[in-house]
């Protein structure tokens, strides 16, 4: 969960930088326009090279400002999408995990360990986090695998991978109308409650 946050931070910084550039560039454009108006007032003509270049610079600057504004809007929209997507994915995955764990009657300790297994920690690290021997963790992990009817770590993780890849998450957050699959029948009973 840290990495998406960091990406969001970077994007936010980029958006702020973009906004700063827009302001500076717009003010530069204004400066050139003011200068051109003054020059015209003093009897300049567009075919004058100096004035022509200035006019060109002004037009390009204004065009650039508009372009950057559109770009900033896109960046904002992408950030918004990412945020929403993250929340949906995060929230629903947590929900799915909870329901699985409920269904398997995992104890609090086993839930903890199951989450850490899903996060990729090995037994030793989990033992360090929980301040228990890695042998205890191994025993609890075995209990998790047997309760979830899996043969080990890889298969256990793949249960959740399947849930993620099934593609039937919908933004409305109503997973009730999933087609039950063999491994999830009991979970769906739970959902129907």
């Amino acid at each position, binding site marked *: 969960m840290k990495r998406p946050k960091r990406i969001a931070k970077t994007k*936010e910084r980029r958006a702020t930088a973009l906004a700063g550039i827009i302001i500076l560039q*717009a003010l530069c454009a204004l400066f050139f326009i003011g200068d051109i108006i003054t020059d015209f007032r003093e009897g300049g003509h567009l075919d004058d090279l100096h004035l022509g270049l200035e006019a060109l610079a002004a037009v390009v600057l204004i065009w650039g400002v*508009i372009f950057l*504004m559109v770009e900033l809007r896109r960046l*904002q929209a992408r950030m918004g999408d990412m945020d929403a997507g993250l929340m949906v994915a995060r929230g629903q995955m947590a929900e799915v995990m*909870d329901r699985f764990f409920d269904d398997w009657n995992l104890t*609090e300790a086993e839930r*903890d360990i199951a989450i850490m297994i899903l996060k990729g920690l090995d037994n030793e690290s989990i033992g360090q986090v929980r301040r228990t021997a890695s042998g205890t963790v191994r025993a609890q992990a075995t209990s998790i695998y047997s309760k979830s009817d899996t043969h080990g770590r890889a298969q256990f993780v793949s249960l959740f991978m399947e849930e993620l890849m099934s593609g039937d998450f919908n933004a409305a*957050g109503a997973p009730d109308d999933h087609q039950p699959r063999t491994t999830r029948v009991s979970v769906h009973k739970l959902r129907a409650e």
Partner: protein
Amino acid sequence: MSAPSDDRSSGRTSARDVAVWDPLVRLIHWSLALTILLNGAILEEESNLHEWVGYAAVGLVGIRLIWAIIGPQYARFTAFPPSPARAISYVRSVLSGDKTVHLSHNPLGAIMIYNLWLTVIGIGVTGYMMTTIRFFGIDWVEEAHEMIFNWLILSVALHVAGVAFDSWRSGVNLVRAMVIGRKRVPQGTKLE
């Protein structure tokens, strides 16, 4: 590790952050405040810099006006139309204790925003006139420049008071929102 799943769909349990002010809106806001502070209180009135800062202020308002057409949802004119009727009904609902949170400017605040922009443009125009040969040294232009500036100071004071009041009333820290861009909306409040 396992929290109650009831609040998952709505994000946080007590309050949620809604991104409302994009960086351009925020930068323009604080830059404009800075130009007003500089020209009103710090810079020499007759100085060149005073002129340039003034033009920058008008330029900032100009950028904001363009952004109000092509910018994102909350920055647009459509999010805070200049409607006295809406402002009045907003005042009524506030007086009757309504706690609706407006994600963009609230309708009364919106009127103030338009007032501030027009005022800054007015000061800019009269200020520019004072630099032209045609209007140089003409009393009414100078007087207008100062009158509109006084109006600006009054408006800024009202603006700040309004922000303080609305922050207190709705529980949304509006100053924080204008700094970091997100409004922290207390759970269970109506949004508009």
